[in-house]
């Protein structure tokens, strides 16, 4: 029989702010970082910059589009489809909010260590 010892929790637990799960995932964060540095980027550039495979990039972009963070525009150019991805206004706000949250967590974490 295993006896589990429980450490008593301190009375005042610091409450960390919630992190946006959609943005926090590394691949999606990389995509959003690229898009925040320009007006728009095409699929090939996003693939070259993030190193994601076509399939994975496509899945991540769909998730971001569903969340309303990016807009995807497909145009036919010389018999090929050119996909341009742009950050929406909501995307810009959410990304800025995400970085604010991360800074808060970093500051709180730093004060806990001290």
């Amino acid at each position: 029989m295993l006896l589990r010892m429980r450490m008593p929790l301190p009375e005042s637990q610091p409450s960390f702010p919630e992190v946006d799960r959609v943005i926090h995932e590394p691949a999606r964060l990389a995509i959003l970082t690229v898009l925040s540095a320009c007006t728009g980027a095409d699929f090939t550039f996003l693939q070259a910059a993030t190193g994601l495979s076509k399939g994975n990039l496509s899945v991540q972009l769909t998730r971001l589009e569903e969340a309303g963070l990016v807009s995807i525009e497909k145009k036919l150019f010389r018999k090929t489809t050119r996909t341009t991805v742009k950050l929406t206004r909501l995307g810009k706000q959410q990304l800025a909010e995400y970085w604010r949250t991360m800074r808060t967590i970093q500051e709180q974490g730093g004060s806990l260590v001290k």
Partner: protein
Amino acid sequence: MDNQSRLTYLTRHYYDLQGIRTAPTWLYLLVIQAEPHTSPRSNGLGWVLVFLAMGLMAWWSWWAGRYYAHRFGRVESTWIPLPTSRLYWSLVMGCFIFSMYRIIFTSYRGDLPYMFTLVWLSPLFNGENPLVRRIYYAVAGALVLSSTYYLQFNHIGNNFIIAIQCVVLLALGLADHLLLMSLRAPAHEDAVA
């Protein structure tokens, strides 16, 4: 450089780092210095060669743009990679006023190579650039400025000064291209839902 900085830098400086786009311009100027018969001043054939070279340069620039778009994609951006350093703009303005003064009042054009060097040296003063890029621009700048001074001091022709500028700008273009290649992410991280 962490991943966030790499992504931001690569996106912002994507067109700035497309070094091989301008290669034929420097090559053409280099050929003109080495072979005076291709100069438009010499004869009618010179002008034909000039127009041919300009056509070739336009074609190369278009082809290089297509190569980059095909290989690395396209970025829509309104951002211009200009240095924000006050020191840089003070130097440019100071050098411009000084060289204009000398051209107007003494007809001396020897300051123009320095002015031109200062213009293409702008990445050195842009804090966004990684250290490696600033170092190779600093080395190139030091090389060009010292050689220009040496050549002018010894009254050696302007052809050498222009030729050195062209060779250095060709090398810088290649270095920028290699930097762009190195900033691409290796294919990875597929196991994400």
